[in-house]
């Protein structure tokens, strides 16, 4: 059988027929930067940042769209590659309102109208994803300085009318990742390139709330820059200590793996876990991604309650549990164990359910236990 190997930066690596250079590199933890490629989708080649040099070939190639071939020798950080990346990063930085202090504005040729739009729309504020932006990271990594470069005019107003998602077109680099996420991963087909490729639009350029969008937020997670941002004030607290906790979603039975971002004992953001981790491969739905406000809700129960004279009054755990134990024992004694029943829960853990099962059968001595699987 033919052996499939390529060399990337002196590493001899196996590849599966059909695999791209980028895929082989990612699988082997070799970092080739890309701003447009989204795992598990077809390449778009809009950003040209993933270019690599193939020994013996005059032109650089896009590693996301070039299949690995036997005995190919790939250089991912050659001087030629770096120069090309710098050029392309520079082009992307200039394409929009990337005012992250790596560049300064030059708006001398702008009309007063345009400048007012800039002001009214909060565009003079530093980018909300400052420090959490793939484009900025790459600009830093490749030392791309764009001081004095003219700024593309801001043509589209920021869309703030939707729940959960803010769309700031002035910071969009038109990489197309959001479109890929929507069309090839979630297959909701809610957004596409519009306005001759200058804007990502929903059908008829409607705001997301009035479109086919179902707010899964796959686009939000895929966006490498500040074009799609959560409506939460998370960005204001970016430099607070943040813990990331991997867990399982608590809504439907799919069991999506997700990362909870926690600050000051509060969930501030949820992302889908790794793109190659079953069962959800990084995807989430609207409930899983955004429906976490209940956790910190002021309506949460915080103390045991006992009904006295038709009213619920706060009680200590000792008082409440003594009452429950005494009542259950008395009813069991008087009417027999089968006059007692337990509804356990499809929401709680296996461990909780097991204990409910043991409590019902071993302590109450009845098999009257069920939950709302049927409802």
């Amino acid at each position, binding site marked *: 059988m033919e052996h499939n190997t390529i060399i990337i930066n002196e590493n001899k690596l196996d590849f599966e027929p059909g695999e791209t250079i980028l895929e082989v590199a990612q699988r082997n933890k070799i970092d080739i930067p890309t701003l447009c490629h989204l795992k598990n989708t077809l390449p778009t080649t809009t950003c040209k940042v993933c270019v690599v040099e193939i020994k013996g070939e005059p032109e650089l190639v896009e590693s996301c769209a070039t299949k690995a071939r036997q005995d190919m020798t790939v250089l991912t950080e050659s001087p030629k590659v770096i120069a090309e990346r710098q050029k392309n990063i520079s082009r992307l930085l200039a394409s929009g309102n990337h005012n992250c202090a790596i560049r300064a504005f030059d708006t001398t040729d702008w009309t007063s109208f345009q400048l007012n739009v800039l002001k009214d729309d909060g565009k003079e504020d530093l980018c909300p994803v400052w420090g959490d932006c793939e484009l900025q990271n790459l600009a830093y990594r490749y030392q791309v300085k764009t001081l004095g470069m003219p700024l593309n005019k801001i043509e589209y107003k920021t869309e703030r009318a939707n729940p959960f998602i803010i769309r700031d077109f002035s910071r969009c680099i038109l990489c197309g990742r959001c479109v890929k996420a929507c069309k090839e991963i979630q297959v909701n087909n809610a957004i596409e390139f519009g306005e001759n490729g200058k804007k990502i639009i929903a059908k008829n350029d409607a705001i997301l709330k009035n479109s086919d969008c179902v707010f899964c937020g796959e686009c939000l997670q895929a966006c490498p820059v500040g074009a799609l941002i959560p409506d939460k004030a998370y960005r204001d607290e970016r430099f607070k200590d943040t813990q990331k906790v991997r867990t399982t979603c608590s809504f439907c039975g799919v069991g999506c793996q997700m990362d909870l971002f926690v600050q000051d004992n509060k969930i501030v953001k949820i992302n889908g876990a790794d793109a190659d981790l079953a069962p959800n491969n990084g995807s989430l739905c609207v409930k899983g991604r955004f429906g976490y406000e209940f956790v910190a809700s002021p*309506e949460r129960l*915080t103390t045991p309650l*006992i009904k006295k004279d038709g009213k619920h009054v706060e009680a200590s755990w000792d008082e409440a549990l003594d009452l429950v134990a005494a009542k259950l024992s008395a009813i069991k004694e008087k009417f027999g164990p089968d006059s007692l*029943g337990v509804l356990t829960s*499809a929401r709680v853990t296996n*461990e909780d359910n097991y204990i409910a*099962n043991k409590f019902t059968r071993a302590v109450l001595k009845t098999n009257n236990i069920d939950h709302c699987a049927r409802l």
Partner: protein
Amino acid sequence: MTNTIADIETSDMILVTGSNTTENHPVLSTFVKRAKLKGKKLYVIDPRKIKLAEYADKWLRPHPGTDIAWINGLMHIIIKDDLHNTSFISERCENFEALKETVKKYTPEYVEGITGIKAADLAEVAHAFAKAPAAAILYCMGITQHTCGTDNVKSLANLSLLCGHLGKPGGGVNPLRGQNNVQGACDMGGLPNVFTAYQPVNNDEARARLENAWDITGLSPTPGLPVTEMIQKAHDGEMKSLYIIGENPLVSDPDLNHARKSIGNLDFLVVQDIFFTETAQMADVVLPSFCFAEKNGTFSNTERRVQRVRKAVEAPGESRQDWEILCDIATRMGYRMSYSGAEDIFREIAAVTPSYRGITWERIDKKGIHWPCPDENHEGTPILHTKQFTRGKGMFHAIEHQPPAELPDAQYPYILTTGRVLYHYHTGTMTMKTKGLNTLSPECFVEISSKDAQKIGVDDGAMVDVSSRRGKITAKLQVSSKAVDGTVFIPFHFAKAAANMLTNAKLDPTAKIPEFKVCAIKIEPATA
């Protein structure tokens, strides 16, 4: 599920029935939609023209409650056209002759008469299903929540067996579990007739093993009551106390007037929850517990994958873990239950649960394992029944169509079917705390076809009174292309206009599941 979620994308033909997948299992639906994108076949058979129907090769519309008829019809065509998998049937199944005899009369024309599905469409699906190298069936509550729910499921199993689509990648009969840990609650013995891993309570050996493990005597050999019957017994005065954990039957149960009366009849009601739900408001004692983000533990998903749940935040106030509360009560009642933590409990689960025996928290730290996993060297079982079925041979059940318990008549001329919407979850106690979700789905609605709306003489957005023999609600009319003439959909999330005031509490005789998917209603312009 007999197969995995990832498996769906490898299927050659997917048959989705009684599942509004894009709204109820949104991430799972992406696997279905991607399969279609890759050129695989997709058929949707559902009383509503759900979103997934737009992606399908074809949407077939049966009258609600006629599933056995169309499934028998598919099998009739497959057998008649000699497309059944004879080697699979002879090697791995039994009772084929009885099935063949029963489906004989379910000709496409006969089926069209019962279901309304066109004979040619039925033939198209039958051929696509039988000829696919691997065909998967996905179903949900639209199949099960009927007085013939058990028979509906058996019929789907018949269909899959007939074509040999079980026990292989891309095939299977796959129920989609609606709540995060329904699978786990069942696995853990949260059912009246079985202990963990479905060991029957009336099995002497199973009881002896548990009595030994738990160091007790006198486990009851009599199967207990399912929730629907507990409610009835409470109504009749025989059930004196209920201890309800994280459930809200006063919104989720059928025929809520009846349910409220029943629960009100109890001598002692304990509710353990994270919110002061409609049910908690009736409780004698309310105990505050933890939500998922506050606990360590495991959930088992719809593909039987046991996955970790990890504590991310501290719980509010004095609330306590569900298991800790129960252990404390047990100890106060004279049986000491004490664990150092949830992992300690999981070790005991593994010891008494054959299908979980090989699973440890350490093993599932990065990635969950599908049960059955009989020992610590076992990798888990993504696909069930690859070599033989649990009972040995696959049993064909000869099943006849039976109509729903309540059909429309002159007084109640419309069929009501209930379900969920994308933006809410069950009784809304969790999702309705998120502002954005309420913006996207603010209130109850009555989904109806434009023709029916015209007939009633009300416009889209008007308030209507909807009543059944059991109750009445007032909600906003929503004219929708999803609705088919004569059938109305109302989501059951909203306590203020609870669809379950209307639903019928009639049960499937085996599974004791209520017939949420069919009852008779009338609709009038709102009086108030």
